[in-house]
C-alpha cells in the first residue's frame, strides 16, 4: 500500500505533470542561490593570502566536481530502478543524467586546469583528483556511446543500465587506485591550502554555490527527462491531450516543436 506513490512515479503522464509542476520550484531557488553565492564568493569573500583572487574559481570548480560524482550515482540508481522494476520513466531519467553529468565533469576539468595554471604553473598536472575526473568523463562517454550504438530503445535502456551499475561499483576503486598511483610518484605539493580551516566568509558562498548547482542539476534533469518522456511517448494518447490537441496532430514537425527545451 505504502508503495503506491512509488509505482505512480513510474507512470509517464504522472511523471510528466509532476516534473512540469516541480521545475520552477527548483529553477528559481537555483538562480537566486547562485546569484547570492556569486556575490558572496566573487565580491564579499576576502582574497586568499597565498593565492590572491585566483582561489575564487573554487566557487565554480568545487560544485561542478561534486555534481560530476553525484550525477553518476543518481544515474546508476535510477538505472537500477529501471532495471529492477522495469520502469521506463526511470530509464528516461538515467538517460537524461548522462549528458548533464558529462557536462559538469567537463566543467570541473576545465576549471581545474584554469586553476592549475597559476597554482601549479601548468594547465595539466597529473593530480589524482583531476585524473580521476578525466576517467569519470570517459565513463560517461562510454555510457553515452553504448546508448547511442543500440537503436532499440528498451534494449539500449537495459544494456546501459548494466553498464552504469558496473561503473558505479568501479568509480571508488578507480578513484582510490589513482590516488595511490600518484602518491607514490610525487610528494604532495602545492595543493596545501584552505583545509578544514576555511573562514566563514569564504565557506558560506561555497555552500550557497553547492546548493545552487545541485538545484540547477535538478532543474536540468527535470527538463531533460520531460523531453525524454515526450520523445518516447510521442505516440501516446495522453501526450496529445496534455499538449492540447491541435499542435500535436502534425507528426514529425510537431515532434520537433515538442522536444525543444521549455523554460
Amino acid at each position, binding site marked *: 500500500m505504502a508503495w503506491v506513490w512509488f509505482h505512480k512515479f513510474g507512470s509517464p503522464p504522472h511523471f510528466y505533470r509532476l516534473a512540469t509542476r516541480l521545475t520552477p520550484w527548483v529553477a528559481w531557488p537555483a538562480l537566486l542561490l547562485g546569484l547570492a553565492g556569486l556575490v558572496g564568493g566573487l565580491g564579499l569573500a576576502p582574497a586568499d593570502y597565498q593565492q590572491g583572487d585566483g582561489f575564487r574559481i573554487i566557487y565554480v570548480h568545487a560544485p561542478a566536481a561534486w555534481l560530476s560524482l553525484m550525477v553518476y550515482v543518481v544515474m546508476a540508481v535510477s538505472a537500477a530502478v529501471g*532495471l529492477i522494476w522495469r520502469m521506463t520513466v526511470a530509464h528516461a531519467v538515467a538517460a537524461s543524467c548522462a549528458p548533464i553529468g558529462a557536462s559538469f565533469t567537463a566543467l570541473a576539468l576545465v576549471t581545474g586546469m584554469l586553476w592549475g595554471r597559476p597554482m601549479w604553473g601548468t594547465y595539466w598536472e597529473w593530480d589524482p583528483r583531476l585524473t580521476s575526473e578525466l576517467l569519470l568523463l570517459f565513463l560517461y562517454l*562510454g555510457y553515452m556511446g*553504448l546508448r547511442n550504438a543500440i537503436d532499440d530503445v528498451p534494449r539500449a535502456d537495459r544494456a546501459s543500465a*548494466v553498464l552504469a551499475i558496473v561503473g558505479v561499483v*568501479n568509480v571508488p*576503486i*578507480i578513484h582510490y587506485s589513482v590516488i595511490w598511483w600518484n602518491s607514490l610518484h610525487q610528494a604532495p605539493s602545492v595543493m596545501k591550502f584552505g583545509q578544514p580551516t576555511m573562514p566563514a566568509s569564504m565557506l558560506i558562498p561555497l555552500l550557497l554555490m553547492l546548493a545552487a548547482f545541485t538545484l540547477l542539476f535538478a532543474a536540468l534533469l527535470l527538463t531533460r527527462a520531460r523531453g525524454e518522456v515526450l520523445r518516447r511517448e510521442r505516440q501516446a494518447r495522453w501526450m496529445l491531450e496534455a499538449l492540447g490537441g491541435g499542435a500535436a496532430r502534425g507528426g514529425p514537425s510537431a515532434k520537433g516543436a515538442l522536444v525543444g527545451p521549455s523554460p
Partner: protein
Amino acid sequence: MSAERASLASAAGLLMARDLRLAVRRAGDSLLPLGFFLVITTLFPLALDPALSQLRDIAPAALWVGALLSSLLALDLLFRDDGQDGALEQLALCGQPFAGLLLAKTAVHWLLTGLPLVLIAPLAAIALGAPYRAMPGILAAVLLGTICLSLIGAVGAGLTLSLRRNGSLLAILVLPLAVPVLIFGARATALAIAGESLAAPLYLLAAIAVLAATLAPWALAAAVRIGLE
C-alpha cells in the same frame, strides 16, 4: 539439491571441453592476441633510444599497455561465434545458472588468451631490460592482472554483443574500468624490477580479481541476456 549442483559442474565442464576443442581446431585465432602483444612490446624500444637503462624504465608501462590492448583485441573471440550460430541462446535456455556457464566460458577464454600472455610476459620484460630475479614477481602480477582483465572485458563484450561494429566502443567501455588493474600491475612490475617487495600491489590485484570473479558473472549474465533478446 546436490544433484543439481553436480549437474552445473558437469555442464560447465562439458562447455569448457567444447570451447577448448573448438579453439584447438582454430588455434590461429587464439594465438593472434599473443602475437599482437609481442608486436606492441617490440614497438616501444623502436620508438625510443635502444639504451637498455631507458628501456628498463618503460618496461612496466610497455608490458601493461600491451597486455591491456591485446586482451581487448582478444575479447572479439569470446562471444562472436557462439552469438552468431545461436549457441549462446541454447546456453541461456538450458536451465543451468547462466552466470555459472558464462563464468566457465570466460575461464576458457582466459586459458586461451590470458595464460599465454602470463608465460610470455616475463620473457618480454627481460627483453626490455628487466633482471632475471624480477621474473617470479612479473609472472604473479600478470597472472592476477589477466584474470581481472578477462572478467572485466567479458562484461564489455556481453554489452556490445548485439552490435555489428563494436571495436572502438568496446575500448571506451572497458579501458576506463581496467585502469586500477593497469596501475597496480605496472606498479608491481616496477617494484619487481627494482628488487623491492611487491606484496602491496599484488594483494590489491588479488582483491580486484576476487571482486571481479564474484560480481562480474552476474553483470555478464544480465548483459548477455539483454543482447540476446
